[in-house]
């Protein structure tokens, strides 16, 4: 890692940031989410905290501009220079500029805003470029693994400037973002560490695990300790709060979400046209008006729908749904009663029943562990 000449750094731990303008490539909520996530990459390993400002001055001002934009480093059209940011300091110190001529995305297509922003905020906090090809602070844009964004070289560098993050288990540190006291109070956020935590639904989604709760989702990557809380509407404005069930079909990059007798099919951040549709179109009998939980087993090509103490399964190969539901406990010994949520991770299923989480080995067809519902969160 390297720092700037004179090792400029912020002398305070709580920094403000403001998104001065937005790129038309993404919805404002998506830009907000990407910037917030990029900042949390650094706050997760340092004592630093970030307060979002909607107006006025801020330590880190974030803007999108093309070509010349009132500083000495004009952008150069598509490709080439994607963004730049300034070392900590007054006025434009810490500011991050993004080239509006790039196509900013949330995916691997175009230029991923989260990834570039995380790099630029490294500069905003005092890191210069690293020679290590796997470091986030390596200057060239490359394929990246969102689950292991920070390389040890980056962590060593930023902790050289700011020290390590205090004890992560401290409950007060629910999220790495601190709300500005002068701004209007948000309604109470769900507490991922509460002992009586329950979920509306759970599913895998593009390598992450999503836990649905009222109008929020927790996004958790199995390889990353922290989880991120977002509004469902920040990704899918047309999805309702309080969903009942969700499952992913990874091979189609689709997620199916249920609420009441309707379901939506989501691809990335888009709900496919023609949805919601009624659940009976999937082949259920007319008396099925709600799905409790569901998961898709990619190996079998079967999708399982849990309703009360029974389940239906849809076989992709025969394109057919079971004629009659079966008892859950017959196919999943040890799993009894109504299921709130279920998802598959590797060769295990994780059933959420009331205040309990039950790990079920799909190969051995038996329960292997009883876990707390907040097992996936750093509590």
């Amino acid at each position, binding site marked *: 890692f390297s720092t700037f000449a004179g090792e400029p750094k912020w002398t305070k731990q709580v920094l403000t940031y403001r998104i001065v303008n937005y790129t038309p490539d993404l919805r404002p909520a998506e830009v907000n989410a990407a910037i917030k996530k990029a900042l949390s990459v650094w706050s997760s390993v340092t004592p630093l905290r970030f307060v979002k400002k909607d107006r006025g001055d801020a330590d880190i001002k974030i803007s999108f501009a093309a070509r010349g934009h009132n500083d000495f480093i004009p952008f150069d059209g598509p490709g080439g220079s994607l963004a730049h*940011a300034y070392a900590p300091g007054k006025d434009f110190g810490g500011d991050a500029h993004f080239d509006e001529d790039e196509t900013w995305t949330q995916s691997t297509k175009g230029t991923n805003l989260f990834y570039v922003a995380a*790099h630029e905020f490294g500069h905003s906090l005092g890191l210069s*470029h690293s020679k290590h*090809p796997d470091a986030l602070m390596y200057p060239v844009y490359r394929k990246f693994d969102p689950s292991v964004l920070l390389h040890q070289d980056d962590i060593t560098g930023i902790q050289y400037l700011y020290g390590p993050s205090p004890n992560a288990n401290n409950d007060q540190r629910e999220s790495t973002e601190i709300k500005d006291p002068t701004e209007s109070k948000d309604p109470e956020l769900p507490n991922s560490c509460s002992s009586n935590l329950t979920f509306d639904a759970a599913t895998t989604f593009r390598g992450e695990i999503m836990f649905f709760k009222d109008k929020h989702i927790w996004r958790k990557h199995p390889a990353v300790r922290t989880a991120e809380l977002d509004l469902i509407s920040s990704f899918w404005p047309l999805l309702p709060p309080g969903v009942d069930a969700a499952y992913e079909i990874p091979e189609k990059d689709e997620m199916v979400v249920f609420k009441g007798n309707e379901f939506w099919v989501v691809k990335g951040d888009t709900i496919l046209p023609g949805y919601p549709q009624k659940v009976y179109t999937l082949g259920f009998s007319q008396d099925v008006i709600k799905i409790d939980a569901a998961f898709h087993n990619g190996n079998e090509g079967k999708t399982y729908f849990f309703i009360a103490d029974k389940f239906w399964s849809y076989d992709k190969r025969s394109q057919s749904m079971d004629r009659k539901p079966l008892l859950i406990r017959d196919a999943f010994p040890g799993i009894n009663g109504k299921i709130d949520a279920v998802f598959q991770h590797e060769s295990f299923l994780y059933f959420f029943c009331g205040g309990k989480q039950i790990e079920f080995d799909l190969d051995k067809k038996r329960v292997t562990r009883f876990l707390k519902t907040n097992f996936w969160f750093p509590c």
Partner: protein
Amino acid sequence: FPADPRATKEEGTQLVQKYLENYYGFKKDGESSVWKINSPMTQKLKEMQEFFGLEVTGKLDPGTLELVQKPRCGFPDVGG
């Protein structure tokens, strides 16, 4: 992205020279912007090749050409 096979040597030189100006503090002035063994431009090219872990040849080899065409951060690599 694979390097652009149409880049002629002159184009390559201009591309790399611009890169060295933007990110390695190379100052373009007459004599200094020619590929002579110890010219300032060659020295800067070596500095860039060393930074990126490329083979330090001081020449416009394919690896170097490919790298300078990759999208990247607009901040300099040295003397930022």
